[in-house]
């Protein structure tokens, strides 16, 4: 007789959105191993239908507060692609700067507020603030810096304002850019301290080979603003063939669509980008990766946390360079014109903190959105998370169920799932012999 276990975590904490983990092990056989996504359906594709195309970035950024710059970026690129608009080089720089701000904000929030409590043995960030006040103050300073970047570029971080087809609605002044430059340069010591914080931490051993996907920028920069989709299995697709790289499908236990690649589940996000493009990192980020001992070939999903620290350094250094380049010629750039007023299909890809984000619109001759499709990074990672859990659970069986649940939550958290994006909620439930615990449906399960 093998072991039986039933684990049931209702609403996993310290993730963005609502989800549950349900594991059912009967006589050593894993009957169920699901990450239930129970977020409320919000029908974004319906919200977009018939709306004027220029509203798309402002509507879709509301899919998720924490990824709102990424959505605005993919969305404006899809609109511009459909209408034949080619924004100028300075506009592209300003938008990339905002993406740096969002990466920085999102990664710092994840590693320092949501993951650090596990790393330092605190139940969450509030007790961490008492046991390790320096860590939390550092994280707050860095997060505030990211807000400054996004505030300067787009008025605020949550729901960026100034994304207009062909350009930006407001251009930061030279004085604003100079102030931002000072803040960014002064923060180098804090960024180094963040790397030190995560150096030498031991992560659970979990190795599982999995296809990694990332859209690499055309200009050889570290992947961020979209481009051809690359696979660790060696294949490449142009953006408009995204459906060949990623296929979405519905499963009963998730309000978020799952996705698969050519060989089953896929990984996207910081670890996938690092694997496919680590040689494009700047020297400071490379140095951080070396200090953290992050192997480009790693197959351990817990190393997402480390890849995010490396990308935090990258986003910070890139932001400094971009501000310097923008300061060379701080005059506003004219908005680029529409060259295909009859509309058509448009594809917008952005590498957002959690992975590759696809926006695909059909825009009619009246300038309105006829159809929209968005493929969200968290949805793409869900199948991989479940496959990881299937490998992980059998290795944990000697532990008490509470500890198993805790490890599984850490695993889910490592992917930094954004369930608002994927629909939105995360919860771990262990079942025993197919029966749910009495606590099913109540908070604090496990």
């Amino acid at each position: 007789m093998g072991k039986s276990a039933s684990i049931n975590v209702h609403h996993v904490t310290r993730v963005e959105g609502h989800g549950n983990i349900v594991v059912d092990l009967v006589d050593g056989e894993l009957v169920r191993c699901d990450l239930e996504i129970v977020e409320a359906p919000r029908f974004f594709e319906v919200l977009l239908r018939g709306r004027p195309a220029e509203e798309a970035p402002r509507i879709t950024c509301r899919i998720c507060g924490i990824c709102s710059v990424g959505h605005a970026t993919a969305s404006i690129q899809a609109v511009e692609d459909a209408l034949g608009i080619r924004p100028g080089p300075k506009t592209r720089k300003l938008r990339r700067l905002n993406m740096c701000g969002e990466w920085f904000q999102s990664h710092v929030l994840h590693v320092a507020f949501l993951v650090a409590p596990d790393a330092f043995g605190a139940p969450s960030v509030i007790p961490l603030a008492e046991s390790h006040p320096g860590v939390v103050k550092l994280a707050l300073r860095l997060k505030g810096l990211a807000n400054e970047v996004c505030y300067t570029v787009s008025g605020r971080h949550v729901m960026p304002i100034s994304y207009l087809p062909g350009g930006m609605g407001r251009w930061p002044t030279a004085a604003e850019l100079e102030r931002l430059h000072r803040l960014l340069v002064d923060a180098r010591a804090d960024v180094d301290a963040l790397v030190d914080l995560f150096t030498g931490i031991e992560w659970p051993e979990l190795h599982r080979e999995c296809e990694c996907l990332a859209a690499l920028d055309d200009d050889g920069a570290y992947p961020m603003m979209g481009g051809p989709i690359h696979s660790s299995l060696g294949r490449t697709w142009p953006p408009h063939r995204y459906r060949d790289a990623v296929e979405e499908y519905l499963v009963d236990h998730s309000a978020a669509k799952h996705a698969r690649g050519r060989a089953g589940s896929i990984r996207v996000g910081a670890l996938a980008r690092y694997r496919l493009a680590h040689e494009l990192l700047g020297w400071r980020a490379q140095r951080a990766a070396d200090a953290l001992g992050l192997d480009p070939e790693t197959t351990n999903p817990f190393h997402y946390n480390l890849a995010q620290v490396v990308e935090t350094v990258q986003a910070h250094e890139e932001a400094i360079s971009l501000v310097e380049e923008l300061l060379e010629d701080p005059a506003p750039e004219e908005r680029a014109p529409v060259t295909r007023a009859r509309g058509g299909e448009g594809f917008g890809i952005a590498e957002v903190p959690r992975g590759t984000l696809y926006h695909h619109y059909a825009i009619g001759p009246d300038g309105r959105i006829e159809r929209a499709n968005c493929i969200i990074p968290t949805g793409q990672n869900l199948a991989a998370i479940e496959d990881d859990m299937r490998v992980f659970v059998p290795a944990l069986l000697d532990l008490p169920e509470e500890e198993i649940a805790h490890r599984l939550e850490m695993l889910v958290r490592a992917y930094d799932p954004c369930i608002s994006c994927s629909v939105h909620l995360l919860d771990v439930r262990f079942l025993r012999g197919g029966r749910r615990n009495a606590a099913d449906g109540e908070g604090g399960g496990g």
Partner: protein
Amino acid sequence: MGTATRRGSRPRVAFFSFASCEGCQLQVLSVEDRLLDLLGQVEIVNFREAIDDRRDDYEIAFVEGAIVKPGDVEELLAIRERARILVALGACACQGGINAIRNRLPVARAADLVYGGRRDGVFAALPEATPLHALVTVDYRVPGCPIDRDEFLEAVRSLLAGTVPSLPPHAVCVECTLRENGCLLERGLPCLGGVARAGCGAVCPAWGAPCEACRGFHDDPNFEGLGEAFYRAGLPRSLAAEKLELFNNWKEFRERWERALPSTSTT
């Protein structure tokens, strides 16, 4: 547990999230420099996005999101029963927000378009996306998409001091004028600042985008006047109606503007 140092005297506060982007909770976390001060004044007993602890003995509940699926209503009623003060955070909670755009379609049609017609289990949705006040008494509102950090802090301060948080009674236009943004309508942009409630500092017009009334309406909105202003700007009146659908499509609000601005939207 074991979070508080001076448990007992501080008000116990909880955060809850229904259908939304959780951006309002993120705005709460974005008060950075003042966050630790704030944490010293209250005891947070439930904030799933940031902490593991979950308790039900809260006095003040901050609730973001709209009510959209089976189970939401019961959960909201339970929160209302436990909380002495319930504060609606953000456009989704206050007005239904963008969630309510889908109310123009029967839910079955919306499900056909997005989930291949599935409405069972995790795909189940209520016929309408609904703001909180349509179901329970809401004591205070912090409006906006997202909420304004300073306005949130001000509301917390008021509640801690036992006073009533208030909202500016006037239009976004007033703040836009003070900020010397220049009128977006005069530039031919479909701006709703004339009917929208101030308090955001006219941040959207300042960054080049028209106001979309995410904070709802001010105390005395004139929708006929808005239609007239659109007409004078060379924009169809129906466009004003269409813009109002974005954040104010919940039927109670829609009834108010639709009398003056018949909508032509049929999608």
